């Protein structure tokens, strides 16, 4: 305890009396913090934009067409597969999901959206936060992502016009907004939900597809009676239903085109930024210790133990790192207030906390060499330098 108090006393006195120098280092750490937190937020934002709809599915399993390699766009299931899946023991409910892209042209600026067909109240259709579900059949009604509605100044009761290329012609369809859902971005685009029959009518189609009125689901979201039985039911589904393959939600997210590559890139950037931080902080403290060799020699010669000298260096590094991370956190918050909503920054608690924890570690890690060096300084040699 005495060692701790002595070390703290020395560390704090030095930081206070050399505050300009230490503040400069803290600001460097703050900039690294800013960068790391923004990369983490960008990673989360991009990930959300890609996976949000799938991640929020009220389901534990997703059924794909066999040999589609769990690719949603490559998967196209038979219509009777949904009923076959629902009959499997352990399945609480299953909902078909139909995916395509379209454009809302009735807004001042054309907005590209993911248009998903789903069945109201079934897995695959998110909970309504305002308004109501669309009616069944070919009702020209849509449920919209609330963020998009707010950004586009749309409200329940408004009608949007979408443009879909069918064959060689551009076709325009009016859809009434009847309900809103929360955060349902898919494949980097905001989402509108429509009934499956409507989806089949209004989606972009090739010339060949125009001959059929039957909607084929891309995937089926499967909700289990016992969510812990993912593996068992997955195997049972594959056994009992023909021409399918089954994935859990995590696998489905990871096979979204570009998702893993994108997240890998963002995480690599974050790791390299942290490594740069370690080198910068390590360099600073190493230079500082080299400048302090005679002074450390005096401290040891008058009876300070290695514990006091080493712990003092550790405390100093922790104080400066914490200060830098604190300033960086504040700067990040202030900057985030001014960023346009088109930049996908999401400050997710867990990811940001992990980033902050790693940032707090880079100080002691970077300063490790200098701390070892300080402890190994021999007072006799150090004093001869003086």
């Amino acid at each position, binding site marked *: 305890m*005495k060692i701790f108090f*002595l070390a703290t*006393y*020395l560390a704090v*006195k*030095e930081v*206070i*009396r*050399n505050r300009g120098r230490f503040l400069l280092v803290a600001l460097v750490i703050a900039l690294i913090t800013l960068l790391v937190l923004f990369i983490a937020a960008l990673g989360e934002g991009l990930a959300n934009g890609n996976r949000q709809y799938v991640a929020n599915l009220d389901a534990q399993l997703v059924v794909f067409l066999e040999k589609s390699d769990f690719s949603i766009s490559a998967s196209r299931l038979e219509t009777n597969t949904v009923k076959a899946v629902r009959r499997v023991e352990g399945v609480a409910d299953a909902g078909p999901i139909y995916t395509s892209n379209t454009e809302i042209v009735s807004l001042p600026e054309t907005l590209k959206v993911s248009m998903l067909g789903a069945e109201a109240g079934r897995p695959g259709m998110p909970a309504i936060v305002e308004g109501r579900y669309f009616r069944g059949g070919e009702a020209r009604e849509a449920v919209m992502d609330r963020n998009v509605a707010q950004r586009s100044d749309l409200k329940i009761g408004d009608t949007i016009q979408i443009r879909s290329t069918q064959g060689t012609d551009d076709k325009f369809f009016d859809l009434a907004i009847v309900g809103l859902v929360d955060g349902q971005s898919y494949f980097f685009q905001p989402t509108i939900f429509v009934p499956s029959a409507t989806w089949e009518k209004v989606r972009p189609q090739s010339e060949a597809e125009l001959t059929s009125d039957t909607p084929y689901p891309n995937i089926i979201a499967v909700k289990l009676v016992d969510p812990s039985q993912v593996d068992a039911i997955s195997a049972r589904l594959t056994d009992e239903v023909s021409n399918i393959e089954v994935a859990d939600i995590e696998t489905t997210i990871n096979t979204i085109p570009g998702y893993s590559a994108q997240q890998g890139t963002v995480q690599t950037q974050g790791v390299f930024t942290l490594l740069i931080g370690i080198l910068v902080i390590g360099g600073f403290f190493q230079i500082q210790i080299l400048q302090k060799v*005679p*002074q450390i*020699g*005096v*401290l*040891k*010669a*008058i*009876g*300070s*133990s290695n514990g006091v000298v080493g712990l003092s260096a550790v405390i100093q590094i922790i104080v400066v790192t914490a200060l830098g991370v604190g300033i960086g956190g504040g700067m990040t918050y202030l900057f985030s207030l001014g960023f346009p909503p088109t930049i996908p920054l999401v400050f997710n608690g867990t990811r940001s906390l992990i980033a902050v924890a790693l940032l707090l570690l880079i100080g002691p890690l970077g300063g490790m060499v200098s701390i070892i060096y300080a402890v190994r300084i021999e*007072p*006799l040699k150090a*004093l001869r330098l*003086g």
Partner: protein
Amino acid sequence: MSSVALEVRDLVKSFSLDGGIINAVDGVSFQVKSGEFVALVGPSGSGKTTMLSILAALLTPTTGQVLIDGQNLAQMNEKKRVKLRREKIGFTFQSNNLIPYLTARENVEFMLRLNNKLDRAGRVRSDELLARLGLSDRLHNLPAQMSGGQQQRVAIARALIHNPAVVLADEPTASLDTERAFQVVETFANLIHENDRAGIMVTHDLRMCQFVDRVLQMQDGKLVKVYESKKEILELAQGVLKH
């Protein structure tokens, strides 16, 4: 009758050099009593600094014994030597004496902190000692805000504040002008006598010997002469005697 604060018995320190062995300190024995101020003189390479380093428990002797306040340095591990330096030894160096980010008062009080003795009485004693050294108006100054002489006086206060058995000074006047050097050593000598400590000063400047009680002269690692009479010491200090 004063007790023996420091005793050196047949001390040898050998170093390997170019395949051979040299004795930097070669069979030196002497005693220093409490209240006695001793100068260690000799040309460069005579073994003064090596001797001081051994006395300061910073260097282990090859053979022989060093007893500080009755404790044998040769029988101590590093941890005990650190404790001995903290409790029984006061030290001033040529330069870079003080912790640069502590004020004069904090530098002195730091010795008391190290020894877990920083209480109200310790603080008062620290201020009194600094006042005695003419530094009452410099208590809150950092070393960089003080002259070399003032820094050296703060170092003297730090070396004495915890009542060590032995106070060691390595060329305390090396970075001072003549006038300041005389003031510093005279004050140092007075404090050694008043506080009944054993003081050993390594110096090149024989003029400083006028303030000491005994002069130990070293050459080639051996103790070649001891000046004990006041007359001899003053003559040495005034350059009458051949060094």
